[in-house]
């Protein structure tokens, strides 16, 4: 609301006066969902995001404003499948908003309709921070983003049937843009099919699957467990044996660990993020983020080949 120039509000009031309606207040847990909700909601919705793009989505610091925002929201867009299990339930408890209750129309859980990978056969916490429903970092695959956008549009139509046509038009625009970009991205990464990359945390299985890469070597010995010397030595020797040249690190992960491994192996550290705004130049939205990811990874892989 704050960055709308006052004269626009005045104009809007004059021209739309009688027709003007209250905006849908949408809260998104992480910026990827926030940016897509903003694309679909357009001018009919005001979207706020709880987690910062540089924050670990599994652990977000609760602040009083989160409770206020959740208390006033008409809709909550969440990743679901245990992505926010460490912090969201207590906040929702405190915010006492029945519109966001489980099963209510305002509770938009984006993992519905997504087929998740890495669903564990048995639940055993000794294997690290694993998720019963599968790996929740599904937004790094643009095809999943398409499903999520559609899911959000459907939910907004249900909440605000009068504006449904607008939401559908926004959805179409977003989807078309995403589809043409996806073709471009596939072309960019096609020369590197089957190549292996190292990541700090197991964030990228969906990205890897979509673009035919192998991102199955991690600096963490188990998801969520900080790197240990023995494990890092193993990673280094595997990287040398297989000529792995790229290490992916997200903003909230320990870059120095990755730099040390890179120095040992001659690999390159590439700063990546799951969320728009997590790395410089990606704060415009989901498509810009994916554009950055694909381009920087393609660039690193082609430099590593020389």
């Amino acid at each position, binding site marked *: 609301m704050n960055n709308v120039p006052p004269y626009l509000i005045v104009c809007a009031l004059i021209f739309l006066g009688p027709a003007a309606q209250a905006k849908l207040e949408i809260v998104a847990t992480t910026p990827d969902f926030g940016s897509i909700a903003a694309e679909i909601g357009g001018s009919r919705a005001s979207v706020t995001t709880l987690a910062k793009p540089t924050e670990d989505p*599994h*652990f977000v*610091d*609760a*602040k*009083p*404003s989160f*409770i*206020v925002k959740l*208390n006033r929201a008409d809709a909550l867009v969440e990743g679901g499948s245990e992505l926010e299990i*460490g912090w969201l339930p*207590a*906040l929702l*408890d*405190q915010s006492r908003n029945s519109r966001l209750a489980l099963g209510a129309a305002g509770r938009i859980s984006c993992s519905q309709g997504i087929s998740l990978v890495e669903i564990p056969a048995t639940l055993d*916490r000794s294997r*690290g*921070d694993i998720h019963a429903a599968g790996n929740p970092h599904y937004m790094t695959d643009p095809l999943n983003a398409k499903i999520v956008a559609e899911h959000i549009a459907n939910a907004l139509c249900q909440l605000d049937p009068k504006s449904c046509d607008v939401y559908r038009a926004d959805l179409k625009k977003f989807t078309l843009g995403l589809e043409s970009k996806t073709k471009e991205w596939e072309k960019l990464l096609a020369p590197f099919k089957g190549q292996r990359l190292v990541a700090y945390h197991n964030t990228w299985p969906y990205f890897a699957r979509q673009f035919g890469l192998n991102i199955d070597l991690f600096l963490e010995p*188990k*998801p*969520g*467990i*900080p790197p*240990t010397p023995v494990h890092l030595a193993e990673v280094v020797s595997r990287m040398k044996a297989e000529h792995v040249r790229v290490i992916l690190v997200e903003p909230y992960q320990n870059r120095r660990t990755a730099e040390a491994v890179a120095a040992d192996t001659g690999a390159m550290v590439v700063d990546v993020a799951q969320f728009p705004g997590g790395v410089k130049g990606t704060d415009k939205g989901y498509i810009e983020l994916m554009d950055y990811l694909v381009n920087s990874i393609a660039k690193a892989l082609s430099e590593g080949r020389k």
Partner: protein
Amino acid sequence: MADALSIMLWPLIACLLLPGILVYYGLHIVRREIIFVDLALAQVAALGICVAILLRHGHDWQTYAWSLGFTFVGAAIFTLTRTRDHRVPQEALIGIVYVVAAAAAILLLSQSAEGNEELKRTLVGEILLVQPSEVLRAFALYAVIGIVHLVFRRSFLMISFEPERAIAEGVSVRAWDFLFYVLFGFVVTSFVRIGGVLMIFSYLIVPAVCANLLVDSLKAKLVVGWLTATTGSIVGLYASYKLDLPTGAAIVCALGGALLVVAVASRWGRKAGRGSLRSSERA
């Protein structure tokens, strides 16, 4: 304002009800000059929580039991090390218990996926998201402990404030000391889960120091201490709401600010007092 109250209601109730006993314990601790004993005991309690996390004990009471068990061990250590041996001051041992417990917590949590998050939680707690049942349970417990202290106030006060006299009168200092630390262990264990290590230290020490600066009798100290704790809580909670800051840390800083105000006021007051004395001498 109504909005602030609806969101901060239970944190506020927690910060008004629970520090009462902490302020009282703080007076004992400042007097005994074992300032860091609470930090050490809180850290030992946190270490117990870490063990429970690592053993994947899901139930609340199991976590509490681990935390309490560890605290009792800490209580025993501090009881046995209260000596007048000047080669090894008790403060040194307290410091050692603190750093070893903190380091052990890091070792344990490095084995757990939620390690970093839990480490931070043991420091600043989650006062913003405190559950009403947690607050009420802790308050009931504190009420019982308060009554024990009230009934046996003569012995408890004597072992802290006049240990020489206690020994001369044949009071068993060790036994009372152990009881003192065990009850303190309950207080710390309950509060560490709500407010974290930093907050518990602030509620214990800051009001007691303010009280010592301003007044002399125990009753007056309690009143000043409670006023300081209450003011600090309200200012901290309000700042946290208004400026959207992490709540626990905001309260700790507000208490620090309260001490600054009191220190300046007492300095100024003493100077003014001396000034008037001098002018009356001249007259």
